C-alpha cells in the first residue's frame, strides 16, 4: 500500500509550516536551459531544504523528497525518465538493460544488468547485491519501506529478512548480471515498481543494519561525504561511476550540499536575494504563500520560478463508517459545502495548483474531466449543501471531528474546512496530530475520526497504485490503513477486480477514469487540489525542471551550474 504522497503532500512539508505552492499554467521554465547547459561540469550546487531526509537506506526511503535525493547516490533496476512534464512519468532502464521481461503471465520478471556497473570502491555491482537489497526490506528492523516485495514475492509472507532468514527463494540470480523475481500473482507493472529505491544494490559486506541509513554505499554519480541528519548532506563525485552506463543522470556539479531543516521563509528570502553562494542554490520545496507576492510582482524572480506538475491530489476523506457520514447525502452536502478556493488560498492561491474535481489528477493517464459538485469559482455551494442536509434529516446541523496535522499549514486547512462547514451548520472540532505521527494515527482505524485531511500520490505513474489503494474496501486494515474513507462498496470492489484483469493498460486506465466518476457520486472523499510545485532556483543554475515523479520538485540529477 503505497503512500508516497503522505509525506510529500502533508507530513513533511507541513511540519515546517511551509506550504507547497505551485505556479499557474504548468509551464516548465527550465526545460530550454537544460539543453544549453548540458555540458558544463563542476561547481558546488546548493540545495536549501525546509524538510529533512527521512531515510537514506534504500530499504526505508519511501518519501518522494528522499527519493529525489537518493537518485543521486544509488541506482535502481529502472527509474523515471529525467524529463520535464508528463514525459517524466515514463519508466526507463537504469541498472537494467531494459524495463524487465515478464513471463508466466507476468508472474516472473527477469532483469539483466548493464556491463561496467561499479560501486564507489570500484568493485562491480552484481545481481546478488540487488537481491540482498530487496531481501533487506523484509527485515522488521528496517521498517517504513514500500510493501510490494512482501506482498508480491512468492513466500514473502513468512520471510524475516536476510539477518534471520537466509536468502529468499523467490529471487534468483543465475549469474552476476541476471536477476529473476518469482511473484505470487501477476503484476503487469512490476517494471515500474522496480524504480523504487528498494531495488537498489546493497553489498552485503557494507551492510551495517540500522546504521546503513546514515551512509548507504554509492552506486550512482555521487557518494556521501558527510551526513548530519536535520542539518546537512554533502555529496561528492563518485569517480567509479561511469557516465556511459547511465542515460538518466547528468552529474554536472562536482559537489552537492543539501542544507536541511531550514526555515521556510529563510529559504524563500535567501533564494529571492540569491547573494553569494545562494546564486548556485535551488530551493528544495515550493515557495511559501507569503513569498508569492514578492515573486509574482518581480519579472526577474518570476523567471527563476520553476513550476512543476505533480500526480498528487489533496482531498478530504469522509469516514463512511462513522455516524451521519454513512449517509451519502450528508457526504454530498459536505462535497458541496467545501470552499476549495479558500483551501487553496491557505496554500498560496492558484500558484499552488488547480482546484480538484476528480480523484485522479489530469497528470495521471485515465483522468476524465468532470465536476459532480460544482460551485462558482470553487467557493462552495452552501445552499445546495443545506438542502441536502435537510433531505438527510439533519438540517439542525451535526458535529464532526476533523483530523489535521499539527502544523501551520495543517491548521490553516482545518480552519478553512471548519469555516466552510460552519456555514451549513456542521460544527467541526479539530483533532491536531503531530506531523510525524499523523499518517500512522489516521491510518489506525481505532484512532481515526470523522474526517481526515488527506492526499495521495501514486508510487509510479498510472491509476493502478491510486484508486485501488485508496478506495478498495478490502484493503482496509486496522493499522497502516490507506482507505481513510473506510469506503467499502461491493460494486466498486468488484469493478477493481475486473479492471485488474484487463490485459491492456490503456483500457485499464480508461476504466479507472470512469470508475473515478462512479466513486465521486458516492462522495467518500472530497478532492480539492491538484498540486503544483513552484520552486525558486538560483540565477546560476541550469537544467531545472519540476519532475512529476517527485511531486513537482526539481529533478536533481539534471541540475548544473553555469561556468
Amino acid at each position, binding site marked *: 500500500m503505497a503512500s508516497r504522497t503522505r509525506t510529500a503532500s502533508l507530513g513533511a512539508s507541513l511540519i515546517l509550516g511551509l506550504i507547497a505552492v505551485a505556479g499557474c499554467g504548468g509551464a516548465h521554465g527550465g526545460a530550454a536551459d537544460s539543453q544549453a547547459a548540458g555540458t558544463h561540469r563542476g561547481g558546488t550546487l546548493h540545495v536549501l531544504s525546509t524538510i529533512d531526509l527521512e531515510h537514506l537506506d534504500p530499504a526505508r526511503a519511501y518519501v518522494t523528497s528522499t527519493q529525489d535525493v537518493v537518485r543521486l547516490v544509488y541506482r535502481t533496476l529502472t527509474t523515471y525518465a529525467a524529463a520535464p512534464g508528463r514525459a517524466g512519468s515514463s519508466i526507463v532502464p537504469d541498472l537494467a538493460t531494459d524495463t524487465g521481461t515478464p513471463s508466466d503471465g507476468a508472474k516472473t520478471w527477469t532483469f539483466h544488468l548493464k556491463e561496467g556497473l561499479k560501486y564507489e570502491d570500484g568493485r562491480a555491482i552484481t545481481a546478488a547485491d540487488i537481491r540482498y537489497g530487496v531481501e533487506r526490506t523484509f527485515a522488521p528492523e528496517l521498517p517504513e519501506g514500500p510493501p510490494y516485495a512482501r506482498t508480491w514475492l512468492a513466500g514473502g509472507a513468512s520471510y524475516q529478512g536476510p539477518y534471520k532468514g537466509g536468502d529468499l527463494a523467490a529471487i534468483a540470480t543465475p549469474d552476476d548480471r541476471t536477476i529473476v523475481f518469482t511473484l505470487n500473482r501477476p503484476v503487469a507493472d512490476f517494471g515500474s515498481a522496480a524504480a523504487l529505491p528498494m531495488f537498489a544494490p546493497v553489498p552485503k559486506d557494507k551492510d551495517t543494519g540500522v546504521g546503513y541509513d546514515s551512509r548507504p554505499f554509492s552506486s550512482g554519480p555521487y557518494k556521501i561525504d558527510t551526513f548530519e541528519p536535520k542539518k546537512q548532506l554533502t555529496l561528492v563525485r563518485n569517480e567509479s561511476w561511469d557516465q556511459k552506463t547511465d542515460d538518466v543522470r547528468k552529474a554536472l556539479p562536482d559537489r552537492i550540499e543539501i542544507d536541511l531543516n531550514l526555515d521556510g521563509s529563510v529559504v524563500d528570502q535567501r533564494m529571492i536575494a540569491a547573494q553569494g553562494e545562494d546564486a548556485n542554490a535551488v530551493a528544495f520545496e515550493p515557495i511559501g504563500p507569503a513569498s*508569492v507576492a514578492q515573486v509574482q510582482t518581480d519579472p526577474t524572480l518570476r523567471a527563476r520560478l520553476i513550476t512543476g506538475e505533480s500526480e498528487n491530489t489533496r482531498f478530504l476523506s469522509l469516514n463512511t463508517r462513522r455516524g451521519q457520514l454513512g449517509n451519502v447525502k450528508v457526504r454530498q452536502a459536505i462535497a458541496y459545502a467545501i470552499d476549495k478556493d479558500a483551501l487553496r488560498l491557505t496554500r498560496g492561491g492558484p500558484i499552488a495548483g488547480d482546484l480538484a474535481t476528480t480523484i485522479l489528477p489530469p497528470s495521471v493517464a485515465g483522468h476524465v474531466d468532470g465536476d459532480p459538485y460544482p460551485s462558482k469559482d470553487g467557493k462552495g455551494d452552501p445552499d445546495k449543501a443545506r438542502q441536502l442536509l435537510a433531505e438527510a434529516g439533519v438540517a439542525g446541523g451535526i458535529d464532526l471531528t476533523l483530523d489535521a496535522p499539527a502544523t501551520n499549514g495543517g491548521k*490553516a486547512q482545518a480552519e478553512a474546512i471548519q469555516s466552510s462547514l460552519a456555514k451549513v451548520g456542521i460544527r467541526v472540532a479539530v483533532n491536531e496530530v503531530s506531523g510525524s505521527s499523523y499518517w500512522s494515527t489516521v491510518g489506525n482505524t481505532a484512532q481515526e475520526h470523522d474526517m481526515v485531511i488527506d492526499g495521495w500520490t501514486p508510487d509510479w505513474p498510472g491509476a493502478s497504485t491510486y484508486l485501488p489503494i485508496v478506495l478498495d474496501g478490502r484493503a482496509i486494515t486496522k493499522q497502516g490503513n490507506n482507505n481513510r474513507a473506510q469506503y467499502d462498496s461491493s460494486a466498486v470492489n468488484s469493478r477493481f477486480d475486473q479492471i485488474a484483469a484487463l490485459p491492456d493498460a490503456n483500457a485499464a486506465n480508461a476504466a479507472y477514469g470512469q470508475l473515478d466518476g462512479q466513486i465521486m457520486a458516492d462522495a467518500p472523499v472530497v478532492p480539492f487540489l491538484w498540486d503544483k510545485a513552484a520552486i525558486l532556483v538560483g540565477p546560476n543554475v541550469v537544467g531545472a525542471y519540476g519532475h512529476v515523479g517527485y511531486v513537482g520538485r526539481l529533478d536533481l540529477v539534471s541540475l548544473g551550474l553555469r561556468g
Partner: protein
Amino acid sequence: MRAPSTRAAPLRALLLRTRSVGTRSVLANRATTVSLVAILVLLVAALAAPVLTALAGTSPTAFDTGALDANLGGLPRGGFGGISSAHWLGVEPGSGRDLFARILYGTRVSLLIALAATAVSVVLGTVLGLVAGFFGGWADAVIGRVMDLLMSFPSLIFMIALMSVAPAANRELLLVAVLGFFGWPYAGRIVRGQAMSLSRREFVEAARALGANRRTLLFGEVLPNLAGPVLVVATLSIPACVATEAGLSFLGVGVRPPTPSWGQLIAQAVPWYAADPLYFLLPGALLFGTVLAFNVLGDAVRDALDPRGGGR
C-alpha cells in the same frame, strides 16, 4: 522584600506612596496611571469582545477570501495589511479573517489564561508557602524540596513537552494548570520566607503567649501581613504568564485553532513577516504593551510596599 511591621501597613503604605512627593514619584505615578488605565481598557475590551466585533460587523473565525489577492499568494488587498472600513486592523493573509476581531478575542484568551494561571499559582504558592514557613519541620522539608525541584526543571521545555502530549480538549484549562503548577514555587518561596520571619515576630509571639491557637495565628496574624508580598508576586506573575502563554502558543502547543491567542497570532504571522509586517506587529505590539503595563504596575506596587527596595 521586607516585611511591613504592622497588619495594615501594606495598604497604608500603598496609599501613602501614591501620594508621595518628588519628581521621580510623580513621573512614576504617571506611568503607573497610564498602565493601570491601559490594563483596564484592555480588560474591558476583552470582556466586550463580542459586542465590539458585532459593532465592527466582523467575526474572528469567518473567512473573507474577497479581501485577499489570490494571485499574490493570499496577501491582503490594498497594502497595510488590508486595513479598510470593513476590517479596521486589516485581515489575516491566507484566510481573510478579521484581525481586529482575532486580536480582540486573542486578548480575551491570553488575559483569561494569565489571570487564572496567576490565581492558581498564587493560591497554591501562598497555601504551601504558609504551611512550610509557619509549621516548619517535615512539611517545610517536603515543600521546600518540591519547590527546589520545580525550579530546577527546564520548565519551558518541560511545559512544551507536557502540552504537546496533552489531549486536545480544554487547552485553556490545561494551560492554566501547567502555568500555575510551574509558577507556584516563586510565590511559595517568598511566602515561606515571610511566614517564617513573621511567625517569629514579637506580635505573633505575643499572640501565642496570649493563648491564641494556630488557626487564629495563621489567619489573624500571619496571613494579613502576607497581603503585600503576595500582591507584588501576583502583579508580576501576570505579565510572566502572559508571555509564557504566548510563547507556548507561539511554539504551537498552546491553545488550538480556531481559538486565537496573541502568541498564536504571532506564530501564524511569522512566515508573513516580510510580506505583511503589520500582521505580526499588531499583536506583537499589544503583547509588549500589556506585559510592559503589568510590569510597570508591579514595580509601582513593590515600590509602594517596600520603600527600600529601590527599583529592584
